[in-house]
């Protein structure tokens, strides 16, 4: 067992876990942040994506101990109170989700894509960048629309800040 100290969604936490514990299990089992999902066991599907120090990472591929000292943001931590993150709003407005299972990982991945590409995103780039996230419901059509829509919204939001 080890004690892992990290910051999750802005709050400092200290958790005792077995050394083999993956970050996703620390989040789900120890912190009850069940919005981060497990969809496979081979780091393929991306349902578990969170941000570590601002970058999208598959939390099933990281030992909890590796995240010690870092700043982790999960799907539960991106809205400002009642105000949705522009990516969340874009997924809703573009019907970018159906069963909702892949959605948290998609949203966290998509925010990172927009952060990395800024206003330079086009459909082909979004499709290429989303290759680490699998969705079985939407055929990706509306997810791609949502990401492109959110890219515009995030630019506006950044300009306003």
């Amino acid at each position: 067992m080890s004690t892992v100290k990290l910051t999750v969604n802005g709050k400092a936490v200290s958790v005792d876990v077995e050394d083999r514990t993956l970050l996703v299990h620390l989040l789900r089992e120890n912190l009850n942040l069940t919005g981060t999902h497990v969809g496979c066991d081979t780091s393929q599907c991306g349902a578990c994506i969170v941000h570590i120090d601002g970058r999208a990472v598959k939390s099933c591929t990281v030992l909890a101990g590796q995240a010690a000292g870092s700043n982790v943001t999960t799907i539960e931590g991106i809205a400002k109170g009642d105000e949705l993150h522009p990516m969340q709003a874009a997924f809703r407005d573009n019907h970018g989700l159906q069963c909702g299972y892949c959605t948290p990982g998609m949203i966290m991945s998509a925010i990172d894509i927009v952060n990395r590409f800024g206003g330079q995103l086009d459909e082909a780039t979004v499709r290429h960048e989303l290759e680490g996230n699998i969705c079985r419901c939407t055929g990706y059509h509306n997810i791609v629309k949502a990401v492109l829509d959110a890219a515009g919204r995030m630019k506006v939001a950044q300009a306003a800040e």
Partner: protein
Amino acid sequence: MGIEGIGASVVRKEDRRFITGKGRYVDDIKLVGMTYAHFIRSPHAHAKVKGIDSGEALKKPGVIAVLTGQEIVADKVGNLICGWAITSKDGSPMKMGAWPAMAPETVRFVGQAVAVVIAETKNQARDAAEAVVVEYEELPAVADIRAAIKPGAPQLHPEAPGNVVYDWHLGDEAAVKDAFSKAANVVTLELTNNRLVPNAMEPRSAVAQYDDAEEHFTLYTTSQNPHVARLVLSAFYNIAPEHKLRVIAPDVGGGFGSKIYIYPEEMVALWASKKVSRPVKWTGDRSEAFLTDAHGRDHVSKAEMAFDKDNKILGLRVKTHANFGAYMSLFSSAVPTYLYATLLSGQYVIPAIYAEVMGVYTNTTPVDAYRGAGRPEASYLLERMMETAARQLKVDPTELRKKNFITQFPYQTPVIMTYDTGDFHASIDAAMKAIDYAGFPARKAKAKADGKLRGIGVSCYIEACGIAPSKAVGSLGAGVGLWESAEIRVNPVGTIEVLTGTHSHGQSHETTFCQIIAERLGVPISQVSIVHGDTDKVQFGMGTYGSRSIAVGGAAIVKAMEKVEAKAKKIAAHALEASENDIVIKNGEFKVTGTDKSIALPMVALAAYTAHNLPDGMEPGLKETAFYDPTNFTFPAGAYICELEVDPATGKTTFVNFVAADDFGRLINPMVVAGQVHGGLAQGIGQALLEGAVYDSNGQPVTASFMDYTMPRADDLPSFQISHTTTLCPGNPLGVKGCGEAGAIGASAAVINAITDAIGNNKLEMPAMPDRVWHAIHG
């Protein structure tokens, strides 16, 4: 249409919890004192279980129990059932071997459970499972359909000699023989419909709790039909009587058919929760999903079509072998029979059809309904046949289809179905216009100049949805009725709860069902809640599959609403001192026609519950229930056209355009319908280009993870251009047909037709991966 009524693209009410991480899936549930199950599964496709030694495992930290197949059989937990009886040609019933929840003596596919470890934590259960020693005696195995029916093949079940479950047929053999004897041309085609793994993104999961004081079980499970689960667990698996078993399917992360069935793991979790007197959780990982979720498709077929000298179809003869895997799953028997052969007329006038279907056991994961279920197999066969015929007869494939379209409705096919309505010319015309079909030869020529092979492929599908009526399916062997129930509770303050026996696991019921209420009663959808997925809340229902939710479940809501309206009108008339016949409902107000007198729904509801001033003899309250049994299937239909390019150097396929023109009858929420079409198309395209479950000759699965089985990703798919033509379904009060499966049914033929058009070689099987395409080009 109001802003929230029928036809409005309202954003979804359920989205907020999903986009904020507040969805509640089964694996999110934690109960006090909960233990964890880990299954020990056979690594062999066929073997005798000689012994299980759990001595070392029981000494491991946190281990509570190791339970085996011998014990579950000794406790008289029932064998898994198949709920649709099929009769062979010779009049004999289908022949099935027993399927215990854990194998006591013989395992027949890789992944079949033989024992389960229950421990304090998931890791402890997994660790201890490593220490359980199972002694197997390997037996010869067979995975391929054709190999399984050869003389001398390994035999799976003594009850099914030759591994044949049934040898069934449908149609008029003599009439077809006669048709072929008059044919000017006969077109033949052999094809495989590849085995698919459903892969809902949420793995299956179960949390079972036993209350020994009340002798009552609660099961949280990833189910598309919790009431059917309770019925089967009670009536056949002897878990508990229905009133002592509550089944809850909370948020469920996709199903596509794979979560219809009641699997061994759910049964074991319930049984074990009583054995260890603690709640038991099991959550499958993706590998277990590949090994144990019911697979889909897996047909090998030979078809012949007879044409007269004017290219009119005279007859169709089909012989299909369907792979059932090692055991007969819940609805497996119906899929290659009544959900398949009954659709072999497609959109065409085919005077005579004869289909033979042999269902076969193999040492593979059981196969059952997967999105479309039988209808994709029929549509793929027929639409590749039409394309093949057009090439052989040297006519344009759209012209050949149009020449043979059914245009008069109702139309009785030679294979049971009576199509109620449709306009097949409208949908193909819409699709051809959308893709600029006329301009294709010029585009092909330009692509050729660039060194690319361009092809165009058409697929005109029809499907039967909202499977019904109960009496009819009962006469065909179904073990259940396929009606649906709805209960509408108008609360004293005028808010409304709609209880439905359907289940939403991505289909958007929490929004679209509210729109039906909003349309009729003028109530904002924020004032309406949809309640589903809990057998303690909803009395009974058949769940969601086969695109039935709106056509059957939605119609039940309308029927219940009619009863609510009738009573509310009486209350309003009494309050307004008017005749009941003069009351009209508009925007949530009950108005007396020709006057300015009105009373709002909340006041009517309050009057119903205060009961201070109700008409003489009226019971208080405002709550009504309806059970709706359809009069016929519904028949969504449409035309898909795919245009793509093949790189002859690599065999790689690149989409240029994919257009869909679907007729789903009335659309409740076009945004939601579009989403359903997109998802279905992705699964159909996935089947055509990427997906395929592969076993080696010993029954070892070669594709049991996302590393080996190619799921469609964003980069593999185009954006879709979809549109609708409309003929209203006359069979239900909403005029709806259902839209959940269409894409998966129609897409694969369009893709393969386009590739074979591009490369000029019709010998191509799915999935058409670059190496297969390259070999088809270069030999």
